[in-house]
Every structure is written in C-alpha cells, then in structure tokens.
C-alpha cells in the first residue's frame, strides 16, 4: 500500500520537476508544476516517517515559497521568455549530458549501498521528538538560522525597495 503511494508520489514529483524544467514558454506553469513536486515530496516524507517535515514541506515550500515565485512572476507579468536562439542548442546538449552524467554517477554510487532500514521507536519523526532534538542538540544552529532569516529579511527589503529613504 505505502509502496504504491510512494511510487505514485515519486512519479508525480519527477513529472512535476520535468514539467518545470522543460516548459520554456510559460513561467507560471513551470512554477505550478514545481508545486506538484513539492506537494508530492511532502507525501514522500510522510511515507518515510518524517511527519513534521512533510507538513512543513507543504506548508513552507508549496504554501509560501512557490507562492512567492508566482507572486514575483505575476508582478513582472512575464508571459513568454523572449529568447535569443543562438547558443541555445549547445547549452541544451551540454546540460543534458551533464544531467545524465550526474544521474549515472549517483545511481552507480548508491547501487546496493544500503541495507534494511533500522527499527524506529514510536512517534519517530513527530513534532515532539524532532522538537526535542532540535531544541537540545541543535539549539545553537537553530538560533543561528534565526539570525540568517533576519539578515535575509533585511536584505530583501533593501533590495526590493524602490528608493531607500
């Protein structure tokens, strides 16, 4: 059952990713197919017993980040990417080759590298346990990320402001 769902989600995710990358005409459509990927990845996380991560995945990526993308796209109201056709084929080929190589290497790296997953305790990946780890072992990193977010906020405001006054 869960295996079935996993392959379903994986298929959707890959399809969405492909749609995002290959759709050269329509940025919004690309963003929407990215949403598909994100949501189905949330499902994948849940299947991998990362419930908190799954929820956050949908909440943040699908719910916020991609919406932000859409917002910007609409703000600039880009309908078509106007392309200068030269160099296009070269890059396409190079990109395809590179992607293929990455994939190949990756697959041969992981092939048969993992045994059976370890037994997990009750509530693994729930907000309680993750929170416990996050706020004990990784509290410093947590604080550091808050600083990072602050910096990002300020930076975004400064960048997007029309005139700094």
């Amino acid at each position, binding site marked *: 059952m869960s295996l079935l769902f996993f392959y379903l989600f994986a298929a959707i995710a890959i399809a969405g990713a492909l749609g995002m990358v290959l759709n050269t005409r329509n940025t919004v459509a690309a963003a929407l197919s990215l949403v598909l990927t994100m949501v189905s990845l949330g499902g994948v996380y849940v299947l991998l017993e990362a419930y908190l991560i799954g929820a956050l995945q949908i909440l943040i990526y699908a719910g916020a980040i991609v919406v932000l993308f859409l917002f910007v796209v609409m703000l600039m109201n880009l309908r078509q990417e106007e392309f200068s056709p030269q160099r296009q084929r070269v*890059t396409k080929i*190079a990109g395809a080759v*590179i992607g293929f*190589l*990455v994939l190949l*290497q990756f697959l*041969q*790296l992981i092939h048969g590298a993992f045994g059976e997953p370890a037994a997990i305790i009750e509530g693994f990946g729930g907000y309680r346990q993750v929170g416990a780890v996050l706020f004990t072992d990784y509290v410093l990193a947590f604080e550091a990320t808050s600083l990072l977010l602050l910096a990002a906020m300020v930076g975004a405001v400064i960048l997007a402001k029309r005139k700094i006054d």
Partner: protein
Amino acid sequence: MVGELTESQLLRWIPLLPLMAAAVHGVLLGVVRRSLPRGLVIVLSCGAVLVSFLISFVVLIELTAMEGERVLIDNVYTWIGAGRFSAEVAFLLDPLSAAMSLMVTGVGLLIHIYSIGYMDEDHREDKGFQRFFCFMNLFMFAMLTLVLADNLLLMFLGWEGVGLCSYLLIGFWYADRFNAYCGSKAFIVNRIGDFGFLVGIFLLFWALADAGQAAIAFRDVEASLGAIVERTVTLPAWLQFLPGAPEWRLTTVIGICLFVGAVGKSAQIPLYVWLPDAMAGPTPVSALIHAATMVTAGVYMVCRMSFLYAEAPGASALIAWTGAITAIFAATIAIAQTDIKKVLAYSTVSQLGYMFLAAGVGAYSAAIFHLVTHAFFKALLFLGSGAVILAMHHEQNTDKMGGLRKYIPRTHLVFGIGVVAIAGLPYIASGFFSKDEILLSAYLAHHVPGYMALYAIGVLTAGITAFYMFRVHFRTFFGECRAPDEVRAHIHDPKNVVLVPLYVLAFLAIFGGYLGPSEAFVPIPDANSLGNFLLPALTQEAHHVAHSTEYALAGLATGIILVGILLAYLLYVRKPELPGRIASSLGGFSRAVANKYYVDEIYDAVIVRPLVAISDVVLYRGIDATVIDDIGANGSAKAVRSLASNVFKYLQSGLAQGYLFLMVVGTLAIIGYLTW
C-alpha cells in the same frame, strides 16, 4: 615530586604584590593615559614593597620555626606541561632564598622611600614619577621571582624580567640619547650572557631527560643529578688546547654555560662593560639594580646551583679565576675614575668578583654573606653619592667637588660609614667579616689550581679597594671646595625622606657584618648564624681551621687595607698635587687605566663594527632585501598576478551558469576519481 613538602600560600604574594602595583601603574599610564596623584603613587608602590617585605619576614620566621628540613613550597599552577616535562609556577623558600628575598625587599623598600625624595624634582609633567615607580615595582616582581623561583625556567623568567627593567630604568631619561644608548648596551650585553644561560638550561634538561628522569625543579634536579654526573662530552678539535681535553664532564660544560649567563648579568670579565655605563640611570636605580640586587643574581644563581658546581670542579675553577681577575682589574680601573658613580660602579664589579671568587672556591655561604653585606654598604654608598649629586645639582665629577663636609655633614657621615664598611676595617665594618671569610676560604681552597694566587689577588684587591674608596671620599668631602660659587651657595643636606634610608643603611653597614662573623672574632657559640642558617641549602663542606691562622690572615689583610687608606690620605689630603705627577710619570699606563684599558674601544673595533657590517651587507641587503623581499614575497606576488591577469581571468566570464557548469563538472570529476 615536590608534593610532600610543606605548602605555604603566602609565598606567592611576595612577588605578586609588586606586580599588581606595577600593573595598576601600567594600566593607568598605558591605557587610561592618566597619572595618579603623587601621594597615591607612593602609597601604592612603597606599600606593595613594604607588605611583601613583611610577608618575607613572616615566612622567614615560619621557616626558622620548622624543625627538620627547612623548605616551604607554593605551587601556583602548571605553567608548561608537555608529557613528562612540566614546569610549575612554584615558589620555593629555603634559607638561601629566604635570606635573599629578605635582603631584596628590605633594601628595595629603603630605596623606594629614598626615590620619593630623589625623583621628586625631575619631570613631574610627563608622568615620569609614576612611570619610575611602575618600573621599580616591576623590577621588584622580577627580582623576587628570580629569587623565589622553584625551577630554572621560572628563574629564567625573572632573569629576563630584571634585564628588561634595568634596560627601562637605565634609559629612564630617554630624552638624552646617551642614556637610551647605555640602556640598549646593557640589554644587548646581557643578551649574550642570557644566551649562554639558556643553552645551559636546555643542556641540563636534555641531559636529565635523556638519562630517563626529566626534572625541572631544583630539588628534583639535585636528586637526579647523579644520573648524569659520570657523563662526559668530547670537545671539538679546535678546543683541544683546553685543560682536561679531549673529554670534559657534562656537568662542567653545563656549569660553564650557566656561568656565562652569570657573567653577563653580574658584569664579570669579559661582559662587565655595560655596568659602568648603566650609571646613566637615576641613582636609586644604580643603587637598587646595579649594586644591591640584580647584578648579584649571577652569584645567587651559582649558589643556587651549588650542587651542580660541586660536581663541576673545572667550572668552579673558572668561576674563581674569573672573579679574582675581575676583582683586581676593576679595582685598578676604579683608581683613576673621577666620576663618583663610575668609581662606585667599578667597585661594584670588583666586589662581585669577590663573590664569584668565594663561590668558585666553594665557599657559597661566604659569597652570600658578602652579597648581603655588600648590598648594604654599596646601596648606602650609591644613595650617599646620590645625596651628594642632589646637593651638587647633578654634578657627578669629583673634580668639581671637595670640602663638602662643611656643607653636608650628615651626608659626609653616612658616606664615610659606607667607605669604612667597604674598606673592611675590623669590627666596625660589615665588609670585614665577609671579606675575611672569603679570603680565608680562598686560602684554604686546595682543590682549586693556583689558590694561593687567588688569595694574593684577593688581599691586594682589598688594599686597592680601601685606597680608591678613601680617595673618592677625600676628594669629595675634604680639601677645599672646587665647585663654582653659584653652586656652592645652594649646597645643603637633602630632605629627611632621603636621609632616613641612609641612616638605616648606615646602621646595617656597620652591624650587618654581625649576621655571620667567624667564631674566631666573635667568641660566642654559633656566631656565624647566617652561615649555619644557609648551610643546609648549599652543597659545601665546612672548613675547620685554627683560630691563629684566621688571626694571621685577618691581620695581613687589615694591614694592607690600612696601607691603602694611609696612601689615600697622603695623596689626597696631605699632598693633593702629588697624584697628577705620579700619573704623568707613569704615562701610558695611567692613561690606559684612566681610559679603562680601552676595553670599550677594543670591543667596538673587534666585535661591534664587524657585526654591524655583516648584518648590514649580508643579512639585511643580501638575505632580507634580496632573497626574502624581492624573490620571496614580491616575486611570488608578481608571478601570481601575471598568471591571473593573463590566464585565469578569462574563466571569469560573468555568466553564472558557466560557473555552475564548471562547478558541476569539477564535482563530478572529484567524485568519479574517488569512486571509480
């Protein structure tokens, strides 16, 4: 390994208090850039020294109260720890260091008080007053660390510290370039000695560690010294002419290396040249650092390492001879000096020679005894001369003085006491007992080659000492005054804050000798209390000799001393014109003496100039400027720049995706290399 000893948390405060005071001064001057009001400075500095004086008194009493082995230890913390090698910051109080620290703090305290009056006049403005006391306290810290150190490394720390402070204080009036020059001269000459000292330390530690028992603390070294006593080293071919070649005992080598340091610090031949120039500093500095305490560090170190030197007869002989030669050499120079402080400086050198003579012949207690008495009367003499100089408005040349006893009777009195003390007249002078003990032990030192010669030199030097000291005294205080009238008008005794320390020191100069007279002269049991007190801390065999011999030797010495005094009286009170004629008749020799045998000039020509030349041409122009700068730094920079500007800059295409592409390719390559 020193764990089982009696602990005493008090010890650490003896050096620490002056350090704190110095730190306060330093922070105020260096960071806050404001100087305290004069009163506070005095209270802080003198207070610190006073308290540490009291503490050392207390611990001394504690020490004497102990039965059995009299040693106090204070482990503060581990300073350097590396495997078996671990140097503690630990302070050791045994009779030796107790006597030393008491002397240092006591004399130091007196001189601090004296300085209040002496440094009062000059430059209140550029915070000089506080700066002076900052340095003085720092010096006290370093000196006490040196004295109380529990191991050679910590001692070396203090050793360097006192060197630094002496440099700072000699060049205290840095406005005058000559003073700065003298300071650096002292520092550099000391460095030469310190180098030998350091080599000695490393040699000792290496040898011990090699023998399988790494020891730093003196007691551990002493305990495990047996492991390396038998060890010998083969001299290189070009040293084969030395006595005892080709095989020397390692202890001898180590002893000589350490002694090199002592030579530098205690101004012995050939490294004495810095001490006379050190007189450029303020007189209290000369008294404290260059007469009483720092210059005696070498003697102290030799006594501290007496267990080593007992195993190194060669080194001991070297020490004895160096001391003797220095003694007479400096004494002869002192005859012809006119600058009052110069005379005292050379007499200091000569007296230090005495101490080394004693230490060399194995009479360490005598050396320490003389060290203490010398500290008393030499400090007295310097401070007295300082009083004279104050009175004469910073005139140091005795040619411009004379007949001052009318104007400054009190100064005349205390200075006279000092002169008598150093001359060593029986019973009324502390110098008598200590000097006599030294001469006696030299006379008895059959194990030292040529000990009779040593004895003879000692006696002769005693005479010369008496002669030139009285000469100075007569030239300064007797005869008619040669000072210009406007100066003469204002000559008067200094303030009490200056005089009181003088009185105290005068008292000590007279009666200090009774710390440890020989039973021969003071027929009461255990008269030589100091000697007996020190003995357990030292490695020396007590000598027993018939009192008659002692009387004879003392009589001989006293006779020669009296001759010297008489001579001085004749030449400089009865017939003041005579010395000039004698000098002219002697001609070249007298000129040589007056010019200190041209030693400075010779050094300058033989060592300094070639060194400077080599450094300038080869090291600076050749290696530094050409090799390191041009080829090394600038060359590599140029290479990188040209490479970058001609080749690599084209990778900077500005296309982000290009960079990404390269990045991915690189990652792939690396992973591929690592996996396939």
